[in-house]
């Protein structure tokens, strides 16, 4: 295992009977870096993230985060991590403020009011603090979910499509917030995304998944060069369509 790596994954597998959602992947994510898990629908991105969070038990393989074995010692690590996904809801009937207060307490955040005020300002969600979460638009919910994910100032932030449902302006602002947070805190970001310009802008490492396997990995520029394409969008299409380094994958 690499010493500087904050996330280490070795031969990780998740099988559901004959279905191999993740099939023997290994990778490492360096502390302070931003890594993207890319791939088409069903490639194994969300399954991998769920296993990193201890929400899903692997069939085989090893995960080490912040030096702790996952899922066995996940409770030692979870206070130092967080996750945001537009596909995971918060209680609809609770207001934004109530939801964030509950999670702040669960994460043991000190000075909750000050923390919520700062996040409210940073993510521009103060105006709907008193509104029920269920009454928000998809974009507003995404911002609240990100606020929840930043509550404990995590050392590792996992993001599933962080700018899905956001208009271009808000999405750009979110990316700036994430970059600023990473630079300020030295946090490690691991994100699954379908937005390739986002990946090019945020990430210094990309892991391409297809049918539960890693089919390519490296820095965005390196992959663009290797595939002989002009941007990550084209690289992504090559991989999704089964072309690797100019050859069609089996």
């Amino acid at each position, binding site marked *: 295992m690499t010493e500087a790596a904050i996330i280490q994954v070795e031969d990780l597998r998740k099988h559901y009977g004959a279905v191999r959602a993740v099939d023997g992947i290994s990778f490492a994510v360096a502390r302070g870096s931003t890594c993207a898990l890319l791939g088409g629908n069903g490639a194994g991105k969300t399954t991998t993230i*769920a296993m990193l969070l201890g929400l*899903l038990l692997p069939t085989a393989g090893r995960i080490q985060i912040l030096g702790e074995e996952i899922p066995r010692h996940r*409770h030692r690590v979870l206070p130092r991590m967080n996750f945001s996904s537009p596909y995971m809801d918060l209680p609809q009937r609770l207001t934004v403020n*109530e939801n964030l207060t509950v999670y702040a*307490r669960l994460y*043991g955040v000190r000075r909750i009011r000050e923390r919520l005020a700062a996040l409210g300002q940073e993510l521009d969600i103060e105006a709907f603090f008193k509104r029920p979460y269920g009454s928000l638009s998809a974009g507003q919910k995404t911002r609240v979910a990100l606020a929840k994910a930043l509550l404990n100032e995590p050392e590792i932030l996992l993001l599933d499509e962080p700018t899905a449902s956001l208009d271009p302006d808000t999405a750009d602002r979110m990316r700036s917030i994430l970059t600023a947070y990473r630079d300020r805190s030295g946090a490690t970001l691991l994100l699954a995304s379908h937005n390739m310009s986002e990946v090019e802008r945020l990430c210094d490492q990309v892991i391409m998944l297809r049918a539960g396997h890693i089919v390519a990995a490296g820095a965005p520029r390196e992959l663009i060069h290797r595939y002989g394409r002009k941007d990550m969008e084209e690289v992504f299409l090559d991989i999704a369509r089964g072309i690797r380094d100019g050859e069609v994958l089996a």
Partner: protein
Amino acid sequence: MIAVSPQRIAALALRYLYLLRSSWIRIVELAYWPTVQMILWGFITQYLASHSTVIHQAGGLLLSAVLLWDVLFRSQLGLSVVFFEEMHARNLGQLFISPLQPIEMVLALMLVSLARTLIGVGVAVLLAIPFYRFNLFQLGLPLAGFFLNLVLMGWAIGLLVAALVLRFGMGAESIAWAAIFAIAPLCGIYYPIATLPDWLQPLSWLLPASHVFEGMRSVLLAQTFRLDDLLYALVLNAGYLALGISVFLAAIDKARERGSLLQSGE
């Protein structure tokens, strides 16, 4: 092993408090059924008092029984229904990626169930005083033992029901309402266990509630408190509660294996 955190338990309990206060209908609903039951059985008691020597001898028999039965029912429902709220809200994934430990969730659910039971049954108990001049507290100190045992049994069943729904999905939600009624005839709520057929009685004595209701009749009819009944019920409850907690925690582990914590919902 990470220590159980009272702060996290309180945080989750706060989530349910927020939910409860978000709608006055939810608060009214808590007390509605216990009160309706109390009113119904109050009238039945008044009618039977002039026709039955047993009811005449101990007028509070049926009302005590119905209120104590509601303690059992509400504590079970208070635990399982509150857990279902998380499934409906698709919030289980968020909770289990937070530092919250499953055992802390169990303890928070118990705390909330206790609060809901006290509010729901408490209103009915207090209203029975002006309505029928019946005071459940006349049972004296044994009432605390009866209450404790019924709440513990309600939690055990509530956890088993929650585990079943976690395993089989929200389609199995109706079990929460039906489960306890399946054992009601065996508990001897309104009649002595001796009324049951001989072959059913040993089964009935395996239920802590049977000992509570027998104990209640003993206090009301014979003015004697059967400590042995209470202790036997406590021993049984310790076993059932351990079983309920183990099955619930195993269901969460199984959900982790199947990936259903991410998708749980309607």
